[in-house]
């Protein structure tokens, strides 16, 4: 990863973290603010409900007062005082009275506690009213409506109930009635958007999720709060116990505040955070690009210069030496280092050149010394033979002439070999199949390898058919392969296995020539491609130098793998096109 990319990523991460942090803080603050607001709204609604309860209680008391003063009730209480009173006549009185006054419950009860007429349970006439259930003489007349439980055939309802006593002579009639406290009762409340008020009822699917909360409130008789629901339907529910005059919790009022508004706000905050983050990242990227460009440009110049030096181009321009700070110091040090390296390289080249000349001189001396010694002896013999008889002189002269001719021929051969190496021809490139060159080279050794007087060498040819033609000089490449094959054969005087293999390489072809001979030492491997270096008794030391020269001319590379006793393998990689390098 480049420095610029790293800087870019760093800025992006920093911006993201900052946005996330800010978003979290804002969201947390918003949530707290909402919680506070919700608590205030719940308290306001609860106060509103209590006021509404008080209003309803007053209305119930007034309506009951009107019922008590109505002709129907007055006539009823009067008739009940007669000995011929027929209670059955009044069984249907409560319904119309309750309907006329908008009451949900109304019982007309005689002074023995027996129901004469009931609006909510018309069939209960004749039975004792629940207020007299404990055998009491009479229910107390309550000035205000109180919350009470009303047992209906199919449910237990809750309502505000008041009682009025109507007296005629010795007879009394109790008018007991009120209104049901239910969701319809609560529907009159004006609630802020997102809030709703319900009464908890056992078995009501709409409030079923709030059962544990309601149970807790019933048990503790105190307010409780809970968040109920999941997903978008989360509500903050405040549960308020509604108790009767004896303290028993008769109903639980649920004030639910939808979290949708909060959830919408949180969503908006999230999206704002995402947008801000995206913008910040984009801005940060732009800024970081500019900054990174300014910071990394000298470094990149340095990297390019280093890459050039690594590729062998030593004469690079000193990069960014005018930069300030550490990068400038680094650039200047690098320039100084490359200058020193270049100077050292020149000195090394010069030293190698001297060494090469010395080696050449040594080899020349060695090569020329052997033929020259017989020539000098022959010349000395001729000088001595001048004193011999002409017949003997002629005999010596002919013999010496032959020796001189042979010696000169030998000198000529040496000189020709050196001349050949000095004058390696420029390769002529053409598209050639590497496998064909390998096969042709191997073919030249068929007879030699098949000779009966030499130890057997098995040839293993493993040529990849998918290898494509390359641009190469077939003659020079074949000559290089001949040298490698010859070396391999020479390395196995006791016989062995010669393997030649071709494979597709990245951008070219790879040719491996392996033997199972004695192998090379480390020193031998180091000097293997040095001209005139040989380990053979009669070698010139030019074979592998020629191979290396051919490979270099083809812009390829050659290397050797060998261990003493484990054979030797030469690897050649050649590019598809001679205009490209093998890396």
């Amino acid at each position, binding site marked *: 990863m480049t420095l610029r990319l790293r800087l870019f990523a760093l800025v992006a991460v920093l911006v993201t973290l900052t946005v996330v942090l800010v978003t979290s803080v804002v969201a947390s603050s918003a949530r707290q603010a909402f919680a506070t607001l919700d608590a205030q709204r719940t308290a306001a609604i609860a106060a509103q409900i209590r006021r509404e309860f008080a209003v309803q209680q007053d209305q119930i008391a007034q309506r009951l007062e009107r019922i008590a003063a109505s002709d129907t009730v007055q006539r009823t209480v009067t008739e009940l005082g007669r000995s011929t009173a027929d*209670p*059955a*006549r009044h*069984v*249907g009185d409560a319904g119309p009275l309750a309907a006329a006054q908008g009451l949900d419950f109304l019982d007309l009860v005689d002074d023995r506690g027996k129901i004469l007429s009931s609006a909510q*349970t*018309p*069939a*209960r*006439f*004749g*039975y004792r009213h629940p207020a007299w259930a404990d055998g009491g003489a009479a229910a107390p007349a309550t000035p205000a409506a109180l919350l009470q439980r009303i047992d209906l*055939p*199919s449910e237990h309802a809750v309502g505000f109930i008041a009682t009025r006593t109507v007296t005629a002579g010795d007879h009394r009639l109790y008018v007991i009635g009120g209104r049901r406290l239910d969701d319809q009762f609560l529907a009159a409340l004006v609630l802020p958007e997102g809030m709703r008020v319900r009464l908890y009822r056992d078995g009501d699917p709409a409030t079923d999720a709030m059962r544990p909360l309601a149970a807790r409130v019933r048990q503790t008789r105190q307010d409780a709060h809970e968040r109920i629901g999941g997903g978008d339907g989360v509500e903050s529910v405040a549960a308020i116990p509604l108790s009767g005059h004896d303290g028993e919790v008769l109903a639980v009022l649920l004030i639910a505040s939808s979290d949708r508004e909060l959830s919408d706000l949180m969503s908006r905050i999230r999206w704002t955070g995402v947008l801000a983050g995206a913008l910040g990242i984009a801005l940060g990227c732009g800024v970081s690009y500019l900054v990174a460009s300014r910071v990394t440009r000298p470094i990149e110049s340095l990297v390019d210069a280093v890459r050039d030096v690594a590729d062998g181009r030593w004469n690079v321009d000193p990069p960014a030496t005018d930069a300030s700070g550490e990068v400038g110091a680094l650039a200047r040090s690098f320039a100084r280092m490359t200058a020193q390296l270049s100077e050292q390289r020149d000195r090394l080249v010069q030293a190698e050149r001297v060494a090469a000349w010395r080696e050449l001189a040594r080899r020349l001396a060695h090569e020329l010394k052997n033929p020259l010694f017989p020539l000098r002896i022959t010349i000395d013999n001729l000088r001595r033979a001048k004193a011999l008889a002409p017949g003997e002189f002629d005999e010596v002269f002919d013999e010496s002439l032959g020796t001189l001719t042979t010696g000169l021929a030998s000198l000529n051969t040496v000189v020709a070999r050196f001349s050949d190496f000095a004058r390696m021809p420029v390769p002529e490139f053409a598209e050639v199949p590497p496998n064909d060159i390998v096969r042709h080279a191997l073919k030249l050794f068929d007879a030699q390898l098949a000779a009966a007087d030499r130890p057997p060498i098995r040839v293993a040819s493993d040529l990849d058919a998918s290898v494509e033609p390359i641009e190469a000089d077939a003659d020079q490449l074949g000559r290089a392969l001949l040298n490698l094959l010859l070396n391999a054969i020479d390395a196995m005087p006791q016989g062995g296995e010669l393997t030649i293999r071709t494979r597709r390489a990245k951008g070219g072809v790879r040719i491996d020539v392996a033997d199972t001979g004695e192998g090379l030492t480390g020193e031998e491997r180091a000097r293997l491609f040095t001209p005139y270096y040989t380990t053979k008794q009669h070698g010139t030391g030019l074979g592998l130098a020629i191979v290396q020269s051919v490979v270099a001319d083809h812009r390829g590379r050659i290397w050797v793998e060998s261990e003493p006793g484990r054979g030797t393998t030469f690897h050649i990689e050649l590019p598809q096109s001679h205009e490209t390098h093998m890396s």
Partner: protein
Amino acid sequence: MRRFRFVWLAIASAPLAAAAVHGARAQYGGTLRVETRANVHALDPTATPLDRVDAAAARRIESLVFDTLTHVDPAGGLRPRLATSWESDRGGARWRFHLRPGVALHDGTALEAWQVAAALRAVSAGWSTSIDGDAVLIESQRPRPELPWELADARFAVAVRRSSSSVVGTGPFRLERIEASRIILRAHDACWSARPFLDAIEIMMGRAGAAQLTDLESNRADIVDVSPADARRLTDHGLRVITTRPLQGYALVFEPHKADAASDRLREMFAGSLDRSAIANVLLQGRAEPAVALLPSWVSGYPEAFAGRTLTRTAKAADRLPPEQRTVSLRVDSADPVARLIGDRIAVDAREVGFTVTVQAPAGLAPRPDVRLVRITLDANIPTLVLARLVAELGPRALSLATAEQPPPADAPLAAALAFERALLQGSMIVPVVRVPDLYGLADGVEAFSGEPVDATGTWNFANVSLHAAARSRGRP
């Protein structure tokens, strides 16, 4: 002077006398507006609607259009109608009914004996019919001494079929139009018993009870159905309410899964919790009568106690029952307001002794109940016929659970009917509750020339009904 006074008194009294005579004499004309909650879609004695209320209303309307051979008056006496006389052989297996001469059908043709025989054959109840001159012969395998009473039933009204969908009768009114919610009958001018006072009758069907009362009180209807619980309200408003004798009974019928011996105490306690007197006298405003027997005395002729039950309430605390037996679901007919009232009171009574009662009044499918409140039709003249209808209404399953005995045949003696009724009630699988009459509210302008517009047997006596001048002046439907 004394003579002079009498003259002046006579002169001054003349308009009053004339007015009295005028008021007592029925006037012709006008349309009687009748409302009912029933729905009748065809008038044909051979077809009976499935719904009991609809079937009863159909019989009432058919009695205005079709005549029977005989008729049972409110006092229980057998009267001639299309048949002027009848006689039988000694055993009662062969009957000869002499037809009234000159009876005209609604289409103006004369009624002939073969048409009567064909009509009776269409509703054959185990007899064969033939004619002999102007007489109709009815023969059966068994003696049928009660046959003239049987033939007074509206089922055996003579309907002459003109086509697959058209029948005509000889009654005081002919069918003019029948619509989804309205039937219009027009006076039969050539009726053998005299032309009715009314020109037409408009019957509005499917009307809810409250709507009927409102229409009656606002003078938009002349005769409406009235629930016993509403009767007092009408009389308090100065309107007339006429009542028949109890023509329907209500009984609790336990479902088969409560018929086992383990539920004996449940049934007994549940039946014992009933306060029939409160239901009849308070809830139904004294218009109903408590019932401990299925057959009313006026049908059976014997006291109800003979059926083996007493009216005394025997409430016992249900907490002696296993908990699972204390919960009872009671189903009532949602379309029957009287049944709903009674059901609610039964539930209250049962709750008072410790039962947990759920009252179901489903309009459609509902969970299986434990006990049903069943309405029983009692408008028949013969005990065996009432029992036969009761058996049909209860269904064979409930009957087989209540008793292994078979219902007595129509001509069975009274003792057989009594024995069968006692068997039905034994074990409290079937528990009679109350018997309820039909009640009708009448508008001011409705008068009957003789009797009431609806007689005690429930028959619509509209051929004798006339309207006051103000009511007559209303437009023709």
